[in-house]
């Protein structure tokens, strides 16, 4: 089992799948920032001064970081960023569920706010968190080849604890 999940090809497949998913999610929202801002507002966490800024910045962030993951550049930092992003989403969804809010995650475009949608998004984000974390861990074992590897070497020092794999 560990052989499969620790395999170079599995890592490649996983980062392409996750990168593609984040690009898709970003593209779904980038054209409709107002609807995305409405989705963010349903969480009742951010003040009005920040909601639109987040609605404008998050889709390009997802496309940018997802693209790096997809094309295999800056894999570890990109996976680290997505772990952080997923962790934030999970905390937001948990607080919404705890407060009984009907939220619209807005992850893949806007929809109808509901409690069911919050649970669904929570499950999806938990799976993504595990996936991103696994890419982050595995990427340390497989230094990237060629020019990209040389370019990002200073940013991705090998984790000594991972070298036994």
């Amino acid at each position, binding site marked *: 089992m560990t052989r499969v999940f620790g395999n170079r090809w599995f890592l490649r497949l996983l980062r392409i799948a996750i990168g593609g998913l984040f690009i898709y999610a970003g593209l779904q929202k*980038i054209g409709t*920032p*107002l*609807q995305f*801002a*409405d989705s963010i*507002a349903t969480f009742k966490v951010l003040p*009005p*001064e920040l*909601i*639109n*800024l987040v*609605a*404008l*910045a*998050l*889709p*390009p*962030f997802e496309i*940018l*970081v997802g693209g790096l993951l997809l094309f295999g550049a*800056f894999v*570890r*930092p*990109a996976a*680290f*960023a997505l772990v*952080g992003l997923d962790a934030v989403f999970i905390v937001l969804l948990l607080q919404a569920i705890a407060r009984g809010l*009907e939220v619209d995650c807005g992850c893949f475009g806007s929809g*109808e*706010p*509901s409690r069911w949608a919050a649970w669904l998004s929570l499950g999806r984000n938990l799976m993504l968190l595990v996936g991103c974390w696994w890419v982050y861990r595995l990427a340390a074992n497989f230094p990237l080849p060629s020019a990209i590897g040389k370019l990002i*070497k*200073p*940013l*991705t*020092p090998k*984790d000594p604890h991972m070298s036994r794999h």
Partner: protein
Amino acid sequence: MTSTSLTPLRANFLFLWIAATSALCIGLLLNQFREEPLPLLYQNREARLQAATQRLSSAEAAPAMPSRMPDTAGEKGTQTLPEFLSMEEFSAFVENKRGLVFDARPEIFHRLGHVPGAISLPRDDFENAYTALKDRLEANKAQPIVVYCSSSSCEDSKLVRDSLRSLGYTQVAVFNGGWAEWTAAGKPEETNS
């Protein structure tokens, strides 16, 4: 920069900061090229619709209004509608074509399927949609109107109803069950294809 100058964690946080700042700059730049740039301060749906309704009211009040005379032809103008219509009442309203039916959902959902004869008046694009329908609507502000949205939990139909009332429409009701109840009952659908 050498590999010893940055610990992995610091490098990751540096990357995160650069990516987030770049994304914000890209987002703000793209926003400038939009037809209607998103303002930096968020306004909720109700506030946006109220602002749109106020703009429409003031635009209406400015010129002389030859079409604002109430329509006295027919009995529709004197009919009183309940605040909310049940499934049976709404079904009869649609079948007998007793007035106008407005779909307050986003336009894309209207295109995919709507109540037969319903006109799209989306809450999220109320100002433009209303302006396009203005001549037809303002001929008779006492005509019965029913508004619906996705389901009983959506707010759009009530918000559109309030806006229409603010614009002087006297008989506006809401079909609370919305599209969900209509389709669940197996009622006919219409698409814009």
